[in-house]
């Protein structure tokens, strides 16, 4: 990627440094706090699975029981393994059943007891982490045995709400050229403070993210990968109140990419900012270990804010996501920074503006597998106009060398996609890629023309905003509606009650392993 925009490297370096300064205090917060979901994720890595008859997972039952007795400020690991050892429990599951029934006793072990608990906990969690490592190796083997498709990867969504309808649709999409399948989640899942169990058939506008659904879909895509001789990646959402746990499950079931943003849950799900920043750090550490590519959600800002006015907020958020991601151990090649083609098609020169934005981001993050999102907001019931807009999105994607193209649906303004919508969408991108895949070579913006100037303007605005955020504090900036014109105070939103400040001696073997990993 040779620069086409004449960006000033000093400005770029400065923007990165400002992002680091703005993010640092939040990282400190994440290092000194834990959440219920971070604790539960640790338990999941230690092998605790399943749910009670009401569908409430044992990890929740156990964590809640411990919280009620010893509190969470030292983590659940010490009380849990201490109770296992003391109570002679064969496994965490048995302990959790008793705990739920109020039959298990918890305390904060000290001295040698603590050492023993620590040792057992570390061994159990280590097995989970080893499984993640195995899955990662398995992915490498599968890719070697099939083949890794060239970028841009074609990313497609399935969203029937029923895993058993999703599977054939995903396979059909793969056969028609999809490189990545994302299973959209049911509308309400991100607000659930637990991860549902088992195969599910009744989501609204999406299918529940469960370990079993992950497994079923990954197996179905492995079949189709072998059939096609091309590795088809699977994506889900490490987002919402259970971000850390879902990240762990994704690692355990060899998902390949996860939607995972440092601020999406805050802005679009009204999840508490502090909770989110803590959860995202742990989940990213897990993703780093699992070799999972994260996808960030800057595209969403442009659905509530105007895509021209707010273009620079996308860049600011990407720089923050980059900072937080790297800090959590993600390699640049795992940073699927998001952005979107959301300018109102009525705006003059909208396509040139889109090119300017997309090229700017490409040049700012040369090693990141950028994820480019299609138009959604200005998709109406006119499916022909929508098909056209999607084509120009695809074109902008290939012209500016984006890495991951989420393929737009002509019925975006109407309903979650039909099977045929997806097929037509793939025909669309296949044509654009085949016909105009090399057009980028002839795309050379005039040095001081419309495109280059616009790109520089957006970068300038981003730097200015980062400076403001640095001085007011990121949490305050979020409270003031900086992102997606949505105000989210630091003490508002859901899930704050699941946040706990770590006490001295806090112990979480998963966190420790991930931290050591970096």
């Amino acid at each position, binding site marked *: 990627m040779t620069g086409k925009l004449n960006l000033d490297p000093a400005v770029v370096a400065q923007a990165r440094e400002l992002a680091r300064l703005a993010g640092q205090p939040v990282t400190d917060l994440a290092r000194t706090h834990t959440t219920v979901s971070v604790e539960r994720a640790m338990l999941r890595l230690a092998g605790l699975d399943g749910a009670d008859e009401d569908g409430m997972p044992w990890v929740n039952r156990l964590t809640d029981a411990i919280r009620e007795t010893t509190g969470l400020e030292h983590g659940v690991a010490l009380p849990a393994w201490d109770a296992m050892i003391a109570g002679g429990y064969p496994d965490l599951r048995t302990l959790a059943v008793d705990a739920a029934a109020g039959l298990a006793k918890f305390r904060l072990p000290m001295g040698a007891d603590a050492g023993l608990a620590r040792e057992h906990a570390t061994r159990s969690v280590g097995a989970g982490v080893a499984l993640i490592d195995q899955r990662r190796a398995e992915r490498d083997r599968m890719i070697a045995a099939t083949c890794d498709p060239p970028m841009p990867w074609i990313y497609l969504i399935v969203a029937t709400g029923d895993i058993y309808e999703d599977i054939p649709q995903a396979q059909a999409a793969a056969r028609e050229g999809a490189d990545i399948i994302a299973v959209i989640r049911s*509308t309400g899942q991100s607000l659930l403070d637990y991860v549902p169990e088992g195969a599910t058939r009744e989501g*609204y506008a999406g299918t529940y993210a469960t370990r079993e659904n992950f497994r079923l879909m990954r197996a179905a895509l492995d079949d189709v990968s072998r059939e096609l001789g091309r590795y088809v990646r699977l994506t889900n959402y490490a987002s919402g109140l259970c971000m850390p746990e879902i990240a762990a499950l994704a690692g355990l079931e060899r998902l390949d990419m996860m939607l995972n943003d440092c601020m999406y849950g805050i802005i679009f799900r009204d999840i508490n900012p502090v909770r989110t920043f803590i959860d995202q750090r742990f989940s990213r550490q897990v993703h780093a270990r699992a070799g999972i590519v994260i996808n960030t959600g800057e595209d969403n800002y442009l659905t509530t804010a105007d895509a021209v006015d707010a273009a620079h907020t996308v860049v600011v958020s990407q720089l923050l996501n980059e900072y937080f991601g790297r800090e959590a151990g993600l390699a640049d090649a795992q940073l699927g920074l998001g952005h979107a083609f959301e300018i109102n098609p009525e705006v003059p020169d909208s396509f040139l503006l889109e090119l300017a934005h997309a090229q700017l981001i490409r040049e700012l993050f040369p090693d990141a597998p950028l994820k480019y999102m299609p138009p959604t907001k200005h998709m109406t019931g006119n499916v022909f106009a929508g098909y056209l807009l999607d084509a120009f999105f695809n074109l902008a994607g290939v012209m500016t060398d984006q890495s991951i193209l989420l393929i737009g649906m002509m019925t975006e303004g109407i309903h979650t996609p039909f099977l045929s919508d997806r097929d037509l969408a793939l025909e669309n991108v296949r044509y654009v890629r085949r016909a105009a895949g090399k057009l980028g070579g002839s795309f050379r913006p005039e040095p001081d023309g419309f495109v280059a100037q616009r790109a520089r303007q957006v970068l300038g605005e981003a730097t200015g905003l980062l400076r403001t955020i640095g001085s007011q504090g990121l949490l305050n900036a979020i409270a003031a509606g900086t992102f997606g014109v949505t105000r989210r105070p630091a003490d508002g939103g859901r899930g704050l009650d699941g946040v706990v400040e770590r006490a001295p001696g806090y112990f979480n073997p998963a966190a420790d392993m991930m931290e050591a990993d970096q």
Partner: protein
Amino acid sequence: MSLTGIVRPYGDTTGDGRVQLSFTLPVPFGDETERARAEGAALQLAAKMGMDPAMVVHAKGMGPDFTFFIVYGRVSHLVDLSAVTVTEREFPVLPAAEVNLRIRSALGRKLVVVGACIGTDAHTVGIDAILNVKGHAGEKGLEYYREIKVVNMGSQVSVADLVARAAAEHADAVLVSQVVTQRDAHLTNTREMSAAFRSGLGSQRPLLVAGGPRFDPAAAHELGVDKIFGRGTTPGEVASYLVHALVSQRDPGGWLPPGKERAGAA
């Protein structure tokens, strides 16, 4: 081009009845026989829809089990314009100043509106377009009206919280938005909401208004709400409706939100 006569679809000549149709059937499109059968099946459906002649102009196998079809043809159905019942808007759209004036003179206090996206729906852009000052399509939202007090509870609000807040605020009207419609989520949620207000506040309930792009505005009664607004609604229409339902009909003895009796009396 009469507005009461009989018309037919128009392709390129008056009365030619031409329409375009597309759909998927769960039938394979592999070998010659399968293809012939698939096209036959598509034509059967077109015939059942009243297309004659119908022409399959495109058929594409999607995976081993499905085929997508595009069909053009002629329908002989007549569209009787005089049988189309248009429910005229039952209220005039008023300028903001007029809305404020009527509220002030009739109520002598601000009109209270509580808005929310209920259920797990997080699509706030639509309700914000109605409520926020910024507004929609060049019209300012309800917050801009001096005589309207707006409480915007945001998204993913549970019905219980909504009822409680509406009661606490002595809301004259509750506005809920529903954008996700898969598996009829919007209908289920709206019914649940209106039932809760009925059982929770009884005759004291505020005016209930639902909105969203895929609602059928004629379904208000069935969903237990007083009014439904569909795609493209503007804030001015909503403000005018509120005045119509809560203020203008006060004197002629129309339906009164009983909560207001109390609040007005307080």
